[in-house]
């Protein structure tokens, strides 16, 4: 997600009225793309898409199948599955990042999209944080304490790590709730990096 462009949300939904409603709610803040079925959704999907709202029950390719294909393509987008029933924790293992139970209200949709974008931000911060920590660890493992004390590079790195650590606790306020926690871990296990 770049600074200037709005985040991109892809709506995959076979009922035109429902899709149109989501679009109306989201279009002021996001660039919205719409697909009427799974195949069309996969066609419209590229690395610029940040969040996918995926209907689970669709004719043709089901939401579950679309999700599997999205994960295979390793695009790093966040997927909110739209379902008629509220799933249990275990269903989070299926690989979506959030679920929304129909019917969806405007506020709920906004919150979910915001949350998923924050989580992406958290992941990229965590990734950047790790890169710095690894650099620091290499220095600490190869240089003496005296050499480290002299090193400007080490000093700067330490400050940068400190700042990033604070940034991480600000984003998401740590890990907001159970869904965030599990979905974030799922992202780690899949090696899904930004």
């Amino acid at each position, binding site marked *: 997600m770049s600074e200037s462009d709005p985040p991109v949300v892809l709506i995959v939904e076979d009922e035109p009225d429902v899709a149109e409603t989501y679009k109306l709610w989201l279009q002021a803040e996001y660039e919205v793309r719409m697909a009427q079925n799974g195949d069309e959704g996969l066609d419209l999907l590229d690395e610029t898409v940040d969040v996918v709202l995926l209907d689970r029950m669709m004719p043709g390719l089901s939401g579950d199948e679309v999700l599997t294909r999205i994960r295979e393509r390793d695009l790093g987008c966040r997927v909110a599955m739209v379902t008629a029933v509220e799933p249990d924790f275990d269903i989070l293992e299926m690989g979506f990042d959030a679920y929304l139970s129909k019917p969806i209200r405007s506020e709920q949709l906004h919150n979910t999209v915001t949350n998923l974008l924050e989580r992406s931000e958290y992941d990229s911060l965590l990734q950047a944080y*790790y890169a710095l*920590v690894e650099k620091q660890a290499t220095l600490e*493992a190869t240089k003496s304490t005296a050499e480290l004390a002299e090193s400007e590079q080490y000093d700067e790195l330490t400050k940068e790590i400190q700042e990033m650590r604070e940034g991480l606790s600000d984003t998401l306020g*740590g890990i907001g709730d159970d869904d965030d926690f599990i979905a974030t*871990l799922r992202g*780690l296990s899949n090696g899904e990096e930004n």
Partner: protein
Amino acid sequence: MYDLSTVLDFDALQSVRPGSSILISGPAMSGKERLAYDVLADGARDGDGAVVVTTSDQAKTVVSDFRDLVPELEESQLGVIDCRGEGGTDSGSVDGAYVHQVSSPGDLTGIGIGITKALEGLHNSGRERGRLALVSLSTMLTYTDKKTVFKFCHVLSSRLDSAGYIGVFTIDSSAHDEQTIQVIKQAFDGLIELRDVETGGREARVLGLSGEPTAWKQL
């Protein structure tokens, strides 16, 4: 605040902030695991919840060992996440403790679900304080790379922070290169280091929790 100084006598361990995660590092057979369990048991005697994530002992063993340490252990005061991958993926109650089976020590999502359910159970039984022990990160490092384990520790610490829990995690310092230890260490608020002394016995020191590293102290 959590007082761990009754388990390990250091001033730096007297008032550990809720949300802190501590790495216990030492060579094989240096008593890391025992120390982690003692931290949990000491809290459980005062009514704190206890969560054990195990990659080596089966859940049943953990529950009975824990009962030996804390005879007054109450129903739903202990949750065990067994990641050895030998007990299927069931969850349920074993001798009054909540037990969740995970398919492998590399299944971070499964471990997360187990921890979530264990925390939820403890919360529902009215416990607002608690301690989690993960034994050990060394096993997890054989299933996945250090980058993933680092991130996992960071995310889990964050979750413990929002629950107001403290966490203790063990790592076998003799099983990994220095860089790996340095990296993993960074995911924690503090470090308890254990070492064997040539003349016999064991020493410990505490780093990072308050002020300068402590001196080595005979145990």
